[in-house]
Structure formats: structure tokens, C-alpha cells
């Protein structure tokens, strides 16, 4: 034999999945929600999404090349996903420079400070969003009305989100039945006909993308299911006790960023637990904290904070929640 052959330890075959394929899978799953957003919010949705993606990818490239002096890995699609998710968590009338700051914080502080992909403890897109939320509370809490200002960007007509209407109304003593008249119907909430962040409005499109990710085995069902269940149970108990002062579980599921958060943000590989049991603990924590902030906290919406808080517990969960080892308990049947 005169030719060279490869000699390496087993296994000698590999599956088809790559980081790039998984990341692009998430991007495809987010496309329906983006389309619906463009339908309702018009050019604002396109501008915000484009600026967010371009600046996230650019910051990742620049930081890797000039600060970390390493080979840029922007083609893996992870900065693209961060950019898309950051945009989905911003209102569509947000000035461009605020988005760029958000992208810098998301990629720079949220991701690259810790060593880049795989090393960040907190979801980078949420780090960016929460930074902006605290730094620019006015711009971050004015949401364009759907349909009416599809051709306007920062000068769009704005309105309050259903969650804000309900929070304000309930604290002013208005009964829930009256408040329901002031917000869009549940079918409209489900489709996405409401003021809100770019990508969070349409539960329908987000769930469709989630189903796609489940069938492609990009995510497992544990985290979304545990978040939805804990929100339903927590809000359900409050609603059953006092339906006059509490919104019902369906309203909580369909409003705000719950579906976006549960299906796309909390399931971020890097910042979620490694075992199904750990995922349940993580998901229940997010659900409970979200509802607690929505009902008892200062803000009408708490999904971002809940996910970031539970991100902080992930190393602890991974340390103490272990998969069941084969042969650990001898069970003979």
C-alpha cells in the first residue's frame, strides 16, 4: 500500500447535525413570526430586525478579529440568531442607535466577554434587551399600534400593550371584565393583532415555529411545557380564587413575550440545563417568576427577567440534578 490512510479512534461515522444547521433551524423557525410582524408593523419591523442582525453579526466579527484575535466564526449563525431574537424583543419604532447599543451589549457584554459561543451564562439577546429596558425606559415601552402605521418607523402611532392595560387597570381598581373590553380579543391575541415587541405578538406563528424545532429535534418539549404549565397553574389558582381582580390563564399565555420567551429564549442551549429534570426545574422557575412579576412586580411583563434570573441558577441545577445512571438502582423485573 502506497497511499496515506487516516487512523483515528472510533467512532468513524458522525451524525448530520452541526452547530450551523441547528442555528439556521432556529432562524427558519422564527421566519413565520417575522412575516406576521412585517404584516402588522410594516417597515418598522424590517428596519429594526435588519439593524439588529447586522450590528450583532458585525460586533461579533469585530470583537473576534480585533479584540480576541481569533478566527471569526460568524458563519455558525449564532450571532444571527442573537440579532433576530434581540430584534424580536424590541418595539418596532425604536431609534436605530439604541438598537446598535443593544446589539453591542448583547454580543459584547452578554456573549464575547465570557469567551464567545457556549460560554455565556446569560442569554445574550436578553442581556441586550434588559440593558436597553433599564437605560431607555421611555423608548422601550412605547409600542406601535398594529396595521395603522405600517409605513412609519419612529413616528408610528403608539399604544399600550394588553398587559400594561390590565396591570394599570387592576391597580386602579377596574374589574377584569371591564378591562377585557379595552384589549383585543383572544383570537386577535393569538394571531398577533396587538401592540407589542417585533416578534412577540403572534402566538400562532411562534408555536408553529416551535413545532418545527420539535420535529427537527432542535429543542425538546420540556422547557416550553414546564413554563406554560406553571404559568397556567399559578395564574389559574389566582383567577379561580378571585376572577374579578385577576386575568385568566389564557390571557397570560397569549399576551406579552411568554410564547417567544418559553419557546425560543429559555430553550437557548447554552443557558439552559443539561437534563430533562433540570429543564423542569428551570421552566417552573421561569413560569413562577414571570407571573410573580406580572402580578406583584413593578413591571407589567417579566419574562425577560425571569429567564435571566433562572439562567443564573443553571450551573447550580447542572451540578445537582443528574440523569439517572444505568445500573444505579438495581431494579429486576
Amino acid at each position, binding site marked *: 500500500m502506497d497511499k496515506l490512510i487516516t487512523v483515528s479512534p472510533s*467512532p*468513524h461515522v458522525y*451524525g448530520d447535525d452541526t452547530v450551523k444547521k441547528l442555528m439556521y433551524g432556529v432562524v427558519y423557525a422564527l421566519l413565520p413570526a417575522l412575516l406576521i410582524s412585517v404584516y402588522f408593523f410594516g417597515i418598522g419591523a424590517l428596519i429594526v430586525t435588519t439593524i439588529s442582525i447586522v450590528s450583532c453579526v458585525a460586533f461579533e466579527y469585530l470583537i473576534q478579529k480585533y479584540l480576541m484575535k481569533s478566527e471569526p466564526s460568524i458563519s455558525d449563525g449564532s450571532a444571527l440568531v442573537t440579532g433576530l431574537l434581540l430584534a424580536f424583543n424590541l418595539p418596532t419604532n425604536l431609534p436605530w442607535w439604541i438598537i446598535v447599543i443593544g446589539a453591542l451589549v448583547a454580543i459584547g457584554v452578554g456573549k464575547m466577554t465570557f469567551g464567545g459561543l*457556549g460560554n455565556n451564562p446569560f442569554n445574550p439577546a436578553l442581556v441586550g434587551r434588559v440593558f436597553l429596558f433599564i437605560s431607555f425606559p421611555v423608548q422601550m415601552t412605547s409600542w406601535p399600534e398594529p396595521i395603522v402605521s405600517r409605513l412609519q418607523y419612529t413616528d408610528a402611532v403608539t399604544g399600550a400593550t394588553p398587559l400594561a392595560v390590565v396591570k394599570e387597570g387592576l391597580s386602579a381598581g377596574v374589574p377584569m371584565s371591564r378591562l377585557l373590553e379595552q384589549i383585543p380579543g383572544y383570537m386577535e391575541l393569538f394571531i398577533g393583532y396587538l401592540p407589542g415587541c417585533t416578534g412577540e405578538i403572534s402566538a400562532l406563528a411562534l408555536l408553529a415555529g416551535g413545532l418545527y424545532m420539535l420535529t427537527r429535534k432542535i429543542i425538546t418539549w420540556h422547557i416550553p411545557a414546564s413554563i406554560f404549565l406553571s404559568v397556567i397553574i399559578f395564574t389559574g389558582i389566582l383567577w379561580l380564587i378571585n376572577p374579578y381582580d385577576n386575568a385568566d390563564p389564557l390571557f397570560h399565555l397569549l399576551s406579552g413575550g411568554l410564547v417567544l420567551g418559553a419557546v425560543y429564549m429559555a430553550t437557548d442551549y447554552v443557558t439552559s440545563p443539561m437534563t430533562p429534570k433540570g429543564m423542569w426545574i428551570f421552566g417552573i422557575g421561569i413560569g413562577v417568576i414571570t407571573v410573580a412579576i406580572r402580578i406583584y412586580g413593578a413591571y407589567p411583563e417579566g419574562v425577560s427577567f425571569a429567564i435571566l434570573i433562572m439562567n443564573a441558577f443553571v450551573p447550580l441545577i447542572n451540578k445537582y440534578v443528574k440523569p439517572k445512571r444505568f445500573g444505579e438502582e438495581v431494579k429486576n*423485573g
Partner: protein
Amino acid sequence: MIQTFPRGGIHPPEDKFSAGSPIKVLPLPKTVNIPLSQHIGAPSEPLVKKGDKVKTGQWIAKCKSFVSANVHSSVTGTVTKVDKLMDSSGYKRMAISISTEEDQWEEGIDTSDTLNRNIVATADEIIQKTLDAGIVGLGGATFPSHIKLSVPKGKTADVLIINGAECEPCLTSDHRLMLEKGEELMVGIQLIMKKLNVKKALIGIEKNKPDAINHLSSLAKGFGGTEVRPLKVKYPQGGEKQLIKALINREVPSGGLPVDVGTVVHNVGTAYAIYEAVQKNKPLIERVVTVTGKDLQTPSNFMVRIGTPVSELIEAAGGLPEDTGKIINGGPMMGKALINTDIPVTKGTSGILLIPSAEAKRKPVVNCIRCTKCVSVCPMGLEPYLLQQASEYKKWDIVEEERALDCMECGSCSYICPSGRPLLDYIRLGKSTVSKIIRSRKQ
């Protein structure tokens, strides 16, 4: 009911190209190199020297300790050297080289094809003949079989499991053996049952071999206590602990043996070899080897004499394809890559797999994204990503605590990893280091 093991596992492409090729007898090679370490345990001790004439089936190296195995000549000819030679492990180890002259068998060996169903051997004779014949586990683990024919004091076995899962992609040697030597195999199973004194034997076969399932099921009616159980296709179904879990729902405890849960597992090839040893007085000097690959002209199954160079098998299957990038002794999941084609077939060689150069290299390694796929496919319930990190950073206490020694090196984690990380490589490093630490602690 179709069964499988519940936790983990993967579905690599099956690629059983040679499943339809009947077993052909490979012509005698000009020379054979018969390694003295074809089994787990101590190398055997040579009984012949350079210049000696040997007959086919002659005893040429003896078992040196309890965990060891006898070795026999696979041809008739002259011993040309007893020296170190490269074998499939990649190490140079002792081997006996014989130049072939003819094929004259040692006296007393029945070389006919007639089936001998009549079991006259006593339990002691069965184990003695298995030991004499140098039989080792032919599924690939090559653990000396006579040890697995005795149940240690204080333990009992109530069921024998016969491993016909052949879950490794590409390999078909067990499949063909079950189809073509079914009756001999059934007699072999009866022999093992007699020795172990168990009344029940379950043959586990993955359902991608329906012909083997049907054939052995109909044969099983004529042999008391044996039953064929179809299994779902899932790798590593043929892992000993997984097979036991799938068939009788018992979990071998960590660090334990199958007999701890009342069972013993033998491969179909081993059961056939035991038949040959006991009923035909024939030592283990040949075995079925699959030769396969995407670009190979005629993927085949050969009856091959032990010690035959791999190159002869490849030639017989149409020659080495132009762009071969890797030559593997065994299957794609657990096989060993060979350094050249001069390496001999040994008792543990179930197949020779040729991989095109495009598929011979690994994926580029990128950061772990903690996607949890390695954790979800691990059939032992381990966390490969964590073991890999701990091994990389030499945190041997964590490697031990996280039970690296439970790993059977099935490779499912490395297979599934989207980041192309060398998970199993590091786990192997961790396992061997932890084993050393544990040994030094005992001293």
C-alpha cells in the same frame, strides 16, 4: 412484542450492503500471522518455534493464566517466525507466522458439514472443550468464553441470552451465520444451557433481519427452552447491558456483571464456535468476516482462517477502492482503524470496513454549545460533555465521581455531537487515568 433498551441510543445509517451475500470460503492465504493476544487477558505462550511443522488445528500457544485463551494453527505448514508483529491494536505484539503448504487437519477433528445434534458431552466436558478450543467472545469483546461458562459461587443464572442483535452498522457476519448455520447455532445454545444449567435461552435479533428472526424462530420450536425475541433497531442494542435490559428488564449494577442479575450473554458466533468445539472437536481457527464499504465492488461475507492478512479479504471482494481513506477492523461505531492491510484477521474481527476519504476525516471541532444531545443519547445515563471537560482539565476526581468507568465506549456521544467534539477520546483518557488511580489506591 418488540423490545428495546429504554435510555439513550442512536440511529446511524444501517448500510448493511453485504446482508444478501452468502458466506464464501476464502482461499487459504500463503502465510498467516497468528497473534498471541487475540483476547482480553494475558497473552498465550507459544508451544512451537521457528522451523516446526504444524497441522491445521494444531495447538500452538497455550493459555497462560485464568483469563487467557489457547491458540491453534489455522493452516498446515512451517513456522517461519515467532516474533513481534503489528496487530489491529496498532501495537507490535507477539505472533506466530506460518507459511502455508497444504490443509491437513489435526487428527480427531471432524471437518465434515454434517450436523451433530446429539449432545453426549457432560457439563465439565463442554467447558473443557471450550477452553481447549481457544474460544473467546466473537462479538468483538474477545473475553475468554470458558470463564463465562461457569457461574461464580454464590450466584445463580436462570436465563441465557444469545446476542444476535448485530447493531453495528455495515456488519452482517452474525446475520449470515444465523441464516446459514442456524441449526449448529441452536445446538451450541443447548450446550451452553446444559453447562450453565439454565432452562431458558432468549435470542435477541434486531428486526432489520427478519429472515434471521423467522429462520431461528422456526428452528427454535425443535429445541426446548429457546425463544427468538425481535428487537427494535437502535444502536447500541447489542451492548451487553442494553441487551439484558431490553430482553429481561434487568439492570446490571454499575461495575457488576450480567451474572449479578442472573444471566449470561454469549454472541451467536461464540455459540457456533462452542458447537464446533464440542460436537466437532474443532478449535477456533476460522470465523465469518464481513468485508464491506460504499465503494467496494462486491461487499461479501467470508469464512476466513485466523491470521489471514486483511489485504487478501479486500482483494477477494474486488480490491481496494481508489479513494479509500480509512480501513477499519470492525464496524464504524466501535471498530479500530488499521494502519495498513497486512494486519491479520483475529478471533475478534467481525468485519473489515472501507471508508471513502471524503468520510474518513472528522468534522471540525467548535465550542460545546451544551445542546444536551450527548446526555440524551448516552445509554448509560452519563454526561459525556462533563466527562470530556473534566478529562481535558485533568479533574480526575470529577471524572471518577461522574462514573466514567461505566462508559462502554459505544461512541453515541461523539456521533451525535453537532460541535464535532472528541467526547469519547477524552472519556477514554479519563477512564484509563481513573483506573490507574483506583489501582494505586488499592496498593
